[in-house]
């Protein structure tokens, strides 16, 4: 599946040189540093990396949802020929959800607890389609619940009456409401057990087949990504360190960090081997080194790695990695 969709690639969202900083006191912490990649139409891109590497910050910045003290300092997010980051409030409001919806990390907390699921589906429908009447809104809301496998009779219930899995489905239903071209999913199943995670992921794949939207899936779970993504981008300390088709990332990782990440997960089908993981802790972004950010933890580091930060090197048309060893 991955090979086909990549071949006939038509860019949907083009992220160019995006940097996001957090203002902490009078210091600036660069959480996303000059990240560029493209999400193609109908494609599922995974964004992997350890906690605190800037994945979520990046995801929020794509639709300018970052909260102070986060600040987009440079870059462009080109969607349909227009720079989303240059939109004014009203343009942004109309763009959000209509073109790009977001499924948040904590489905448990991202539904408004005091208004019904019905209202939470209808408010987004109504604000983007003011012409819809009450009956049409209701029909669409029921249809959306049916699509994600919730009985439409539960439409008028409140989030607390839903189980964790159902809430995540409800969020999925809301994210599909306006048939967006891109759904950004920030660790959508982190809070769920593996059985429910499996159900929801299967459903997501079906829905993707049906509606043809693109997905940006943010997770630290490479095995989950391996199943549904076409390409995987790996971030470390705010920088994109490797991006390649899923198979390449999982079986032919080039960057030492990606290798470490891949080796941190057990292979269910393969032979038993010792999981190596990555030694050390994530770096302190307040004192970035002159050289490669990963140098301190890198098992293959050289003198050059201490001196200069490598650029993203194109290994082939699909595969890029940011490491001196590859040049």
């Amino acid at each position, binding site marked *: 599946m991955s090979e086909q969709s990549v071949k006939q690639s038509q860019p949907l969202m083009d992220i160019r040189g995006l940097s996001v900083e957090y203002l902490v006191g009078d210091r600036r912490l660069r959480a996303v540093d000059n990240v560029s990649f493209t999400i193609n139409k109908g494609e599922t891109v995974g964004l992997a990396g350890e906690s605190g590497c800037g994945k979520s910050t990046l995801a929020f910045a794509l639709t300018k949802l970052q909260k102070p003290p986060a600040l987009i300092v440079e870059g462009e997010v080109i969607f349909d020929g227009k720079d989303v980051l240059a939109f004014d409030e009203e343009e*942004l409001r109309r763009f959000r959800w209509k073109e790009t919806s977001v499924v948040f990390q904590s489905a448990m*907390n991202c539904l408004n*607890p005091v208004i019904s699921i019905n209202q939470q589906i209808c*408010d987004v429908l109504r604000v*983007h389609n003011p012409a819809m009447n009450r009956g049409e809104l209701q029909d669409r809301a029921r249809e959306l619940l049916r699509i994600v496998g919730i009985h439409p009779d539960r439409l008028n219930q*409140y989030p607390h009456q839903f189980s964790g899995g159902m809430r995540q489905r409800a969020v999925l239903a809301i994210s599909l409401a306006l048939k967006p071209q891109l759904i950004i999913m920030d660790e959508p199943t982190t809070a769920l057990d593996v059985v429910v995670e499996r159900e929801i992921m299967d459903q997501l794949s079906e829905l993707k087949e049906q509606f043809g939207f693109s997905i940006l899936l943010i997770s630290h779970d490479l095995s989950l990504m391996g199943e549904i993504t076409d390409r995987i981008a790996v971030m470390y300390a705010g920088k994109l360190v490797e991006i390649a088709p899923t198979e390449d990332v999982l079986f032919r990782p080039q960057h030492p960090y990606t290798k470490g990440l891949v080796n941190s997960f057990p292979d269910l089908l393969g032979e038993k081997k010792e999981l190596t993981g990555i030694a050390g802790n994530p770096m302190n972004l307040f004192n970035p080194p002159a050289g490669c950010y990963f140098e301190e933890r890198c098992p293959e580091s050289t003198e050059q790695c201490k001196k200069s930060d490598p650029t993203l090197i194109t290994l082939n048309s699909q595969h890029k990695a940011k490491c001196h060893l590859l040049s």
Partner: protein
Amino acid sequence: MGGYLSSRLFYYIAAFAVALTFNFLLPRLMPGDPFEIMFAASQGKIQPAQLEVLKEQFGFVSGPWHVQFWEYIKGIFSGDLGPSLIYYPTPVTEIIAGSMPWTLLLAGVSSFISITVGLSLGIFAAYHRGGKLDSIASPGLTLLGAFPQMVSAMLILFLFGLHLDWLPISYGYDPDIDAGWTLEFFLSVASHAALPLLTLVISGLGGWLFLMRNSMINTLGEDYITMGKAKGLSGRRVMVQYAARNAILPVVTAVALNIGFLVAGLLIIEMIFNYPGVGNMMLTAVSGRDYPLLQGLLLTIVGCVLVANFLADLAYLWLDPRLRKS
């Protein structure tokens, strides 16, 4: 839903029963029998036999306590709180009925204004945190609210009532005007209520603003707010339906907890502005040792506070669907 309401209702009934019991016990345990005072004050004009009749009329029947208590309860539930001592023989219930509307007027209007204005300001201040409104109204109103009510009442009375002489400082309406449904009477009532209302609103606003602002700021960090924004909803809808709608829940709890204090403040304001409400009547009752009137007033106030609390519970139930689950 039924479970929550009935447990609350049970609590209020129990609280009222306790209040009733204390109301019965206190004057009987206190040294200084009011009848002995009357007897002494009459300087021999009241015969001991007459005193017994009076006692009975006031519900102080002789006999064991449980008999007395039964008589007392019967009296209360038949709406008979006995006659007042000061305004003898006017019944206590009549006096309370005459002063209650004034207190309700002050309490109702001042709470309505300070709660609606204070909460709205709190919502805006939090939503545009650090903006103009937040940096002026939040500290300013908090400063005003930090004055003890008694002090701000005196200042307002002196400034607007005496120094500038803009508004009357005493009574519920101009005694030269006949009470009735006329515009003149209405204006008189409004101008007389203005200063006490101003005091109550000024001292209340800051509290409501801060309560709502802080609750809003907590709520604004929630994921469903970000989701509301991500959905492309209007700023107003996110602010009201997503943020304020959730942030108001702890505020309602705070309202319920503070009703007693609000009433206490109200009583002081009435005394300062010589306003013909329950608070002022209470002052009269205390200084005249009018036990039946005092008891009646206390009981009425307790009743009102409990009813207000119950209304706050109903509001909470209406606002939070999580409680409606049976």
